[in-house]
Structures are given as C-alpha cells and as structure tokens.
C-alpha cells in the first residue's frame, strides 16, 4: 500500500515539474545552433544577421541599398558593431517586437526568395550581445520626419522585448533607414572567414549595393556596379507536390473557400478548375463539399490525389536571379580576371519548391597571383556561406564536375588546380540548410544536378575562350616557329647533301612566307596514309 502511494505521488510530482520555457531561453542555452560557437564566428554572425536584414529591407522596399558597417574594439575582445542602412526603416512601435522577440518576423511562411526567413537571426545577435556584454541593443529608425532611438534588451524568460529607453528628435522629412548598434564579445580577423570577406562576397552577388566598411584595422567602400535592382520576386502559393498531409489538414480547416474545388484552386499554385475537378474525382470527394466538413479519410485521399495528378511546375517569379552580365561584371571588379562568364539556369523544382542556380567562373588575370587552386564561393539566396565548405551540396557538385573537360587541369579530388574562381549561388524560396547555422546546404540530388549543369554550361564557355586564346597565340607563333626550325633543319640538310646551309634556308623561308600551310590543311596531311605493298 505504501509503495503504491509513493508511486502516485511520484507521477504527480513529475507532473508538477512540467513548465514551459521560452524560445529565447532555449536559444540562449543553445546559442551555438545559431552560429555563436566561437569568438571569431560569433562576431561574423552578428554582422551577417544585421547586414542581411538591412539588405532584405532595402530589396523589399525597392531601394538601391547603401549599407554601412562599423566595427570598433572598445576593450580587449569587446566590439561595438553598427550596421546602418537606407532602407524604409520601421515604425517605432514595431521595433521592440521586431528586434526583441524570437519567432517574430515578416517573412516566415511566405514562399518567396529572401535571405532571412525564420524570425530568429537579428534576435539571436541581440541575445548574444546581451549575454556576453550585458549591454542592450540600440535601434535607430528614421520615420515620418523623426529619428527614434530605442534601447532594448530581450526578456529571456518571457521571450519579450524590454524597452530601456526611447528618444525621438525631428529630422529632415525624406530621411529613411535603420541603424542597429550592439556591443559583443568576439575576436576580429581580417582574412579568410572574416567580416571583410563576407562583405566583399555578398557585394558580388548583390552588385547594386553600396557597402561602406569601417573596421578596426581597415576601411573600404564597395561602390555599386549596377544601378538597377533585380526584378522583384513574387510571393507564391504552395505547390501541391510539396505539401505534407498534416499541413493540408490545417489548410482545410483554415480556408475561407466554401467548397473543395474553390479551396484547391485558391490555396495552391498550378491547380486550375480542371485539375481541381480531377483531383476530387480521383479522391472520390464531393467537389461541392464544405472543406471544414471533410473527414480525415477524405483529406488523406485528396492528399494522395494531389500527388498523382499531372500539374505544371510551380511558378518561378518568386525567384530573382541576377542578370548574367551583372554577375559577370561584379566578379570582374572583385578579381580582375582575364575572362569571366556567368550562367543563370532556368528555375527547377525540388519537393514542390522552385529553385534556381546561378554560377560564375572567373579565370586567370590577377587570380593567378592569389592562388594555385581554384577558389570556391558558395552563396544561398545571394548570401555567402563561409563555413562548412566540405559538407555542402555545392562543394560536392563542384567536385563532381570533371574540369579536365574544359581545358583546365583535371581535378582528381577536390577543386581543379587552376587560377579560377568558381561562384555558385542557390536561389530558392526554401533553402534546405543543414542546420540553423545556415552554412551548408543539404545534398539533394536535384540541387546537385542543377549546379553541375550550370557549371558545365559555364565550363563550356570558358573552354571556348581558352581554345580561342590558344589559337590566337598559336597563329602568331607559327611563322616564327617554322623559321626557327628552318635554321637548324637547313644545317642538317646541308650536312647530308653538302649544299650550303644559307642556300637551303633562304629557299625554305621563301616557302614559309608564301604561307600556304593552314591548320586545316595540316590536319589533312597528317592523316594522309599511303598503302605500300
């Protein structure tokens, strides 16, 4: 009897221990999941999160971005980071939740290409700042003729913003933008997986951006290469092929449509009335039924039917690649190569999500000086990936290409040993990152295939260039070579025959200068085989 009592008490005891924790608390404890693993990477992550936010905001508002980044060491291993943009800014009353509460964002469920999507990045940076230096973040917005300066921190226990101060002062009416200032612990490096590298690379794929950098040891300004924004990506509805059963159920219960056909045509892309009717037919579901009255079995049948009907691929105006010439242009500016090519593939689909690959190759010129092995720049939605290169679908695709086919040194393992920069940018409404650190892309066969196709197309263009270069140099050398060899050849023929060398040589040079031996002719001669019995 006593034993039984104890057990029951135990169950209740355990029940009583159950409590909710906030997502902020979760990430505070698991900060390495957000990229705060070590001082060097943490510093980079903070800058990256704010910079990406700024870039997204400008693009959303269709403003040519100008983004200033300032980093100053205030004491040993403590840095003041300021990121300022000319974007639209935010209304001051929205600032606290936009920067002080996890899982709040404007882009989470939208199917459109964006850099940030999860409502986590900027908050993570602010959380890291307050965790390491205890200092609140200062957000400044220029809004309706006023400048608002809001200091805030995150109440970790409640996942709520805590506003510490709020100032406002009038400014010129047409000023706009947002500025974030935080103090963080970290370690600053100048080369490699560093903040300057990050900025230089993101500028390549966003060449319409002006970046002003003021670092602890160096400053630079990257001017706009292009004065035109890429076309605006559209938001799309989910494609039926990518929808899980559970999500479909939820959609059924939340729709405002009054019947199944209406539901299907209005909530999904690529389902027209005909497709909708045939889905209902296959699923044996009454097309006029109210969605909320569908039974679980009916929804399941609908789900199956949706996968089985033939539908067009999802629309791809949700993606916005660069123009090839712009990508080429910025690669040229950054690396000063002798040749550059950019290829933007048509969009493709993975699990119902549209995605698109753009690549660039820069060859020779100043690159020779940098390295003897190819440099790989990986991007996802125009944002550089600096860590975990060896573990990424892009790397795998690059290594699977046989570069020897394109007149480059063959790569046995890894990258080809050539003066080459390989840029690969994966654009999608949903990038399958391997972790929230967002540094490596999962190895889906569809993605690897597209990247390879893009690289092969670019490779062929590079190959044509290399061939032309070869021929050009070759023709110029031709006469010279023949004349040089004639010098010694004449001597040998003179040895054999006793005729004076100069006599033979002059005759030969006459023949050469007539110049009747073209490449094509030569080939034919080479293959000429005479049978003698």
């Amino acid at each position, binding site marked *: 009897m006593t034993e039984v009592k104890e057990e029951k008490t135990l169950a209740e005891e355990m029940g009583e221990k159950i409590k909710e924790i906030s997502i902020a608390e979760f990430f505070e404890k698991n900060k390495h999941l957000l990229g705060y693993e070590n001082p060097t990477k943490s510093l980079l992550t903070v800058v990256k999160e704010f910079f990406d936010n700024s870039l997204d905001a400008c693009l959303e508002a269709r403003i040519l971005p100008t983004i200033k980044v300032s980093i100053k060491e205030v004491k040993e291993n403590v840095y003041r980071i300021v990121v300022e943009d000319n974007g639209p800014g935010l209304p001051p009353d929205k600032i606290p939740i936009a920067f002080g509460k996890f899982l709040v964002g404007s882009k989470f469920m939208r199917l459109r290409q964006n850099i940030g999507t999860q409502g986590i990045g900027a908050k993570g940076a602010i959380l890291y700042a307050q965790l390491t230096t205890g200092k609140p973040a200062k957000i400044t917005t220029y809004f309706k003729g006023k400048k608002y300066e809001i200091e805030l921190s995150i109440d970790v226990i409640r996942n709520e913003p805590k506003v510490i101060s709020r100032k406002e002062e009038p400014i010129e009416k047409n000023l706009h933008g947002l500025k974030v200032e935080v103090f963080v612990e970290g370690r600053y490096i100048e080369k490699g997986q560093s903040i300057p590298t990050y900025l230089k690379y993101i500028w390549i794929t966003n060449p319409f951006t002006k970046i002003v950098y003021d670092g602890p040891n160096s400053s630079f300004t990257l001017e706009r290469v292009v004065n035109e924004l890429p076309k605006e990506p559209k938001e799309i509805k989910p494609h039926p092929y990518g929808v899980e059963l559970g999500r479909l159920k939820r959609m059924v219960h939340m729709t405002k449509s009054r019947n199944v056909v209406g539901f299907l045509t209005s909530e999904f892309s690529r389902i027209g009335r005909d497709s909708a009717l045939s889905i209902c037919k296959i699923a044996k579901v009454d097309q006029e039924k109210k969605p909320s009255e569908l039974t679980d079995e009916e929804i399941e049948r609908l789900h199956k039917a949706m996968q089985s009907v033939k539908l067009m691929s999802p629309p791809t105006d949700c993606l916005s690649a660069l123009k090839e010439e712009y990508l080429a242009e910025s690669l040229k500016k950054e690396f000063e190569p002798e040749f550059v090519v950019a290829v933007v593939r048509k969009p493709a689909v993975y699990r119902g999500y549209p995605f698109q690959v753009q690549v660039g190759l820069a060859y020779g010129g100043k690159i020779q000086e940098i390295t003897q092995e190819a440099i790989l720049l990986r991007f996802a939605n125009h944002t550089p990936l600096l860590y975990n290169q060896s573990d990424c679908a892009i790397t795998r695709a690059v290594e699977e290409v046989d570069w020897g086919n394109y007149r480059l040194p063959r790569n046995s393992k890894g990258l080809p040993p050539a003066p080459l920069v390989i840029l690969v940018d994966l654009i999608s409404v949903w990038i399958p990152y391997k972790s929230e650190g967002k540094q490596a892309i999962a190895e889906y066969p569809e993605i690897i295939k597209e990247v390879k196709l893009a690289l092969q197309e670019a490779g062929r263009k590079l190959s044509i260039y290399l061939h032309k270069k070869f021929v050009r140099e070759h023709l110029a050398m031709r006469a*010279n*070579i023949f004349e040089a*060899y004639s010098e010694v*050849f004449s001597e040998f023929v003179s040895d*054999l025959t006793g005729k004076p060398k100069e006599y033979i040589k002059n005759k030969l040079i006459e*023949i050469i200068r007539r110049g009747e031996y073209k490449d094509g002719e*030569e080939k034919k001669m*080479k293959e000429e*085989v005479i049978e003698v019995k």
Partner: protein
Amino acid sequence: MQFYIKPKQKNEILKTLRGLGESFLKEIEEGKNPSVEVPVRTLRNIKFDPKERKIFLGGYVSKRYFLHLGETRRFTQLAGIASLSKKLIEEDKHVSLREAFYILKRTIPGLKKNIVEEQEESNRAIEDLELVINALREQLHMNANKLGAVAGNVVIKDRGDLIDWSKLGSGGWSVPSNVEDIEFVEVNAKFVIYVEKSAVWERLHEDKVWKKLNCIIVASQGQATRGIRRLLQRINYELGLPIYVLTDFDPWGIYIYSVIKFGSIALAHISDRLAIPQAKFLGLTGDDIKKYGLEKHLIKFKEIDEKRLKQIREYEWFKHNKDWQRQFDLMEKMEAKAELEALAARGITFISEKYLPEKIKNGEFLD
C-alpha cells in the same frame, strides 16, 4: 617486309642517308613542303602471321611534313639524327643513346627551346630514322646499353682481335652493345642457351654446360638487351644454330622469351625485326614443377603478376596456342611462380646435370 637485316655495308648506309637529304633538298628547290614517309607504328599496322607465327609491320606509311606545327620539331630531329649518323659512320665512331641526346641538344636560335629536351625525343628520332631508311640503330652507330656475357666453343674476330669464347675463365666475354661488326671465325657448337639471369649463367658456366652439351651460353639480366638479341639473331640466321630460351616460370620470363622470338610489342618499332621466330622455350614449365617436385618452392603471385598473366595470355601469338594456354592455366591455378634457382633445392648442379640435358634430349621445348 624483310625480317632479318643483314649487316649492311657502311657505304650503303651512307648512300641512303645522303639520299634522304637529297630528297628534302629536291622538294625545297621545287618550293614544296619537305616530306618523308614513315611506316605507321600504330596497332592497326602491326600484323601477326599465325602460320609463320611472327609479328611484323604492315604496309601503311604516313607522310610527314616539315612545315606542320605538330611535326616540324620531330621532322627536324629526324634530320639531325641522320646528320649525326652520317658523321659517326664517316669517322667510324659509336655513341650511346645518351651521348646522341647531348650531341643533338642545343638551342634553336630564336626559340627558348633546344632541338631535343628529353632523351625520349632523340630516342624517338632514332627509331624514326631506323624505319625510314630500314636500318638498325646499331648500323647507324648508335648503341643502347651493354649488358651480358657469353661463353662457348666459338672464336670471333672483333676490332682486329681474335677472341675465343671458351678461354675466358669464369667471366666470359662481355657482349658489347653493338655486335654488327663481329665476325664468326670458328664455331663449334650445336645450339645456344639464352638465360635471363647472370647468376644462372655462372652456374651453367661453372658446371661447364657449354662444354658438355657443346653449346653457347648467353645471359643478360632480365629483358635481353638489343646487343644480345642481335647477337642471338645473327647466330641463328648466319650460323643456323637453334636458340633455346631459359627463364623462370612466370609471366615476366615468358615475356622475355616472347620478345626474343616474336619481337617486342612496344608500339611497332624496328626492334620487332630483331625477332627470332625459330627460338624455343626451354624455361621452367608447369609440368617441370610437378616432375621435379618444386611445389614447395613457389612464390605466391602478387596482384601485378596476375594482371600481367592476364595480359600476356591474350596476346595474339599466345592466344591461339593450346600448349601455351595450358601453361597459363597451370600458372593461374597455382597462383604462383617458380624460379630457375629453385632447382638448386634438388642439388647444386641439378640444373646442369639433370634438368637441361634431359629436357634437351627429350626435346621438351615449348614453341
């Protein structure tokens, strides 16, 4: 095609070389692109005559031009070697392949290149010239490496010396790289044993095998040198003595035999014409292993041996030969090879006193 090349008269070769130069000169004077016809040495021009069982070059020749970017260099090198060869014959000097390389290696005015950069280039030019004027490189006074010794009841004349191969102590006569000029003065032997290892040659020599069996014994180390092969060929053709090849029972040994008999298969090249189709295999066989109880003295095959065996048994000249295929099968089954030295386990002089006399007496050759 002619198989055995007689030692040519020096004047004859000089004439041919001069003729080559004159053909170039004629084309030049006519305003044409100087050209030369070189027998093709790619696989399609290598023929095997299953009846006569010999490898030979087919009748394809390719025409090469001096004014052709892909060929001008090689063309020049060919002329260079021809010019050097003419000089050597006139001065009665010989050079090694390495010396020929250094002699030809000099800067081409106006180019940052030498006439030849690697010895491979001058070697190839020598091979080209051999084909073009149908002469052996030794006749062009260019020698490969010297290696190997000979003993037997033979007296030769070389550079004015009379040399008795039976009176040279334990060492024997060191075979020169070039045997074109030796004369056979007195030959008192019935056949030749060529053995692939000098250590075994010393065994046979110490045991006076050449005296007892009345033969000539020749050895080099591993693959026979050109000097040795030419010597064997000359003995075979000029003196009519059979050549018996004594090797290990493994793919490498059998290939040594194959080269002596059929010529090397390294892409068709004049050395194929050093072949001796009448040569016979006297080396260890799968049957010998059983017969002489060598099973305990086998050496396990390594991967490379197996691979080589697979290659060699597919050669045209072995592929349709049942006797050889049987040997290859035995070898494959054993997954091991047997060395000549293993016979020593049955007695130091077993090879000389039992193995060789018995096999020769019974005519246990493979062909």
